[in-house]
């Protein structure tokens, strides 16, 4: 054998010795940590998640319990954010609103990610007619106005479904059919999930179209790997960066949409607390009781900004060279 191992040592890059191995994910995390705004956003989002998960354990009062002797009170030791017109504790309701917003945002984003990434990956990797068909479905779905769809579902599907559930309850006496509130919820936000996926599909399709021409994919083919392995081990992990960024922005967007729908009365309906319907209630009395409007509005604002900072930070961290 020749002296090649020695030859290698001559060309060792400076400083590689004693350094921790760094994966690209690790590098991205380090860059994210260096971005103060992104860290701020990240902390807010984590706090939001903790509050949402721990909701029932940290609320001082039940969100439904009314105390008509304590109506419309402003901030006090007993009620940190005061009480509303039925004497319910506003802090407890804001915390439950976080729960509602989180459930909606995560389920909507998860479903759209699932649909979007699978369809986009199939389109990008198979190409040809399959690709054209999926792109057509994407275009079709993107042409549906979200708000209009929500309104249409609200006026057309809710009533028949509610009647149907009442019928079923009379026939079977299964308590599941009493939960009409949650069905409303599922209808509107399920529809939302079904039309929020196209951006993910388009993004991942584009990523795959460019990555599948990369030389390491050709190398993987030359090594005799199966299509599935190439797609899942070599193409997708390299195309997920932008999808993560888009999903973090999508979470924030879904929260705002939830509030917007609830504000308009087509999303979450009282008595389930949502920031949207709290803002809507607060708006009616804000001259006399501004805290009823301020509490949910300020929280919603902070969360929106936090998701935006986090998304920007992720974008910079996952793609230092910039893909826009």
């Amino acid at each position: 054998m020749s002296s090649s191992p020695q030859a290698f040592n001559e060309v060792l890059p400076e400083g590689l010795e004693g350094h921790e191995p760094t994966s690209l994910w690790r590098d991205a995390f380090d860059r994210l940590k260096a971005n103060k705004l992104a860290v701020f956003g990240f902390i807010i989002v984590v706090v939001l998640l903790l509050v949402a998960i721990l909701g029932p354990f940290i609320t001082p009062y039940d969100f439904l319990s009314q105390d008509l002797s304590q109506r419309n009170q402003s901030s006090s030791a007993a009620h940190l954010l005061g009480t509303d017109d039925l004497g319910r504790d506003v802090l407890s309701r804001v915390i439950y609103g976080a729960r509602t917003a989180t459930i909606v945002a995560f389920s909507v984003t998860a479903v759209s990610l699932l649909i979007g990434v699978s369809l986009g990956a199939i389109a990008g990797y198979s190409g040809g007619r399959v690709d054209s068909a999926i792109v057509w479905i994407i275009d079709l779905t993107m042409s549906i106005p979200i708000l209009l769809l929500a309104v249409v579902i609200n006026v057309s599907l809710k009533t028949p479904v509610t009647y149907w559930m009442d019928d079923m309850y009379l026939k079977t006496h299964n308590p599941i059919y009493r939960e009409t509130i949650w069905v409303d919820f599922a209808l509107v936000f399920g529809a939302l999930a079904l039309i929020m996926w196209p951006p993910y599909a388009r993004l991942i399709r584009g990523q795959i179209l460019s990555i599948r021409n990369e030389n390491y994919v050709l190398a993987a083919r030359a090594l005799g790997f199966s299509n599935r392995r190439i797609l899942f081990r070599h193409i997708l992990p390299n195309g997920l960066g932008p999808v993560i960024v888009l999903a973090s922005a999508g979470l924030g967007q879904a929260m705002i949409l939830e509030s917007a729908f609830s504000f308009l009365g087509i999303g979450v309906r009282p008595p389930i607390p949502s920031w949207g319907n709290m803002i809507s209630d607060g708006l009616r009395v804000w001259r006399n009781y501004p805290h009823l409007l301020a509490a949910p509005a300020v929280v919603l604002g902070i969360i929106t900004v936090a998701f935006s900072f986090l998304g920007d930070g992720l974008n910079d961290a996952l793609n230092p060279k910039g893909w826009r």
Partner: protein
Amino acid sequence: MKRDPNATLIKVRSLTKHFPVRLGAYGQHKATVYALDDVSFNIFRGETLGLVGESGCGKTTVGLSILQLHRPSRGEVWYEEIDLTKLKEADLRPLRQKLQIVFQDPYSTLNPRMTVGAAIAEPMSVHRRCEKQQIQERVERLMDDTGLPMRYGNRYPHEFSGGQRQRICIARALACDPEFIVCDEPVSALDVSIQAQISNLLKDLQEKYNLTYLFIAHDLAVVKYISSRIAVMYLGKLAELAPRDMLFEHPLHPYTQALLSAVPVPNPKEERSRQQALLEGDVPSSISPPKGCRFHPRCPLAFEPCSDAVPDWREVDNNHWIACHAVK
């Protein structure tokens, strides 16, 4: 099973690859790129066949078509008793272990999200080359063979330099015990000092693992150093194929002569006085290659039949193949 050391390992017959393309701002004109036309040659077990030619003459297409990474438009590629062109992708996969490739650009041929060790281990586990427990050991042996310190197994490709990455690519290609490796300009993206290291490494590995190479390059010095036989390509066709020394001492084809005389001599006195057979004009487009002999518009020896008849690919001497009307 004993094998004849000089047996033919790869037999290429009339290999042709045409790429359909669309030209014009809106892709309104259909055209064909004649990347590779009617190329035939053998590669013997244990040898290094060098393949030289200018940029865009189809060298890489030959390599990719042999491995069926491009499906050839016509022709046959025999690996031992199997015609690879007739196989479906799924049937090819197990054979791909035996037929490997090292690419030109080591920066883009490694998955950036896989550690070096994982990249070298992947072919072994996919093709079940050995027991799970042995994989780590084999990865270390391959890294040692290719001059990579073992402690770098858990590092990522972006932490390495070009030459080191090329070593990783070579180790990965070796992981599935190949018999034949297409080296597609494996050193031309590297610094000159590193080129020598990698060329030597390839030579050592060939001896150690009984490898057969198709070594594609445009640098005649590198090809001369590493090859036992050399094929010269021009515009999608083979011009000449001969054992190394014969080709360098007695080039027959006018294109080979011009190519060899273009190499500068590292002696200023000799360099000033020597005769150069300079070619006129440019390489024609492979979308509309010249009729007859593709070299005839630039050929100093061109005469009447050259512009009409495609010259036969014939053996003029023992193991010396040429496609030229002017050479008797």
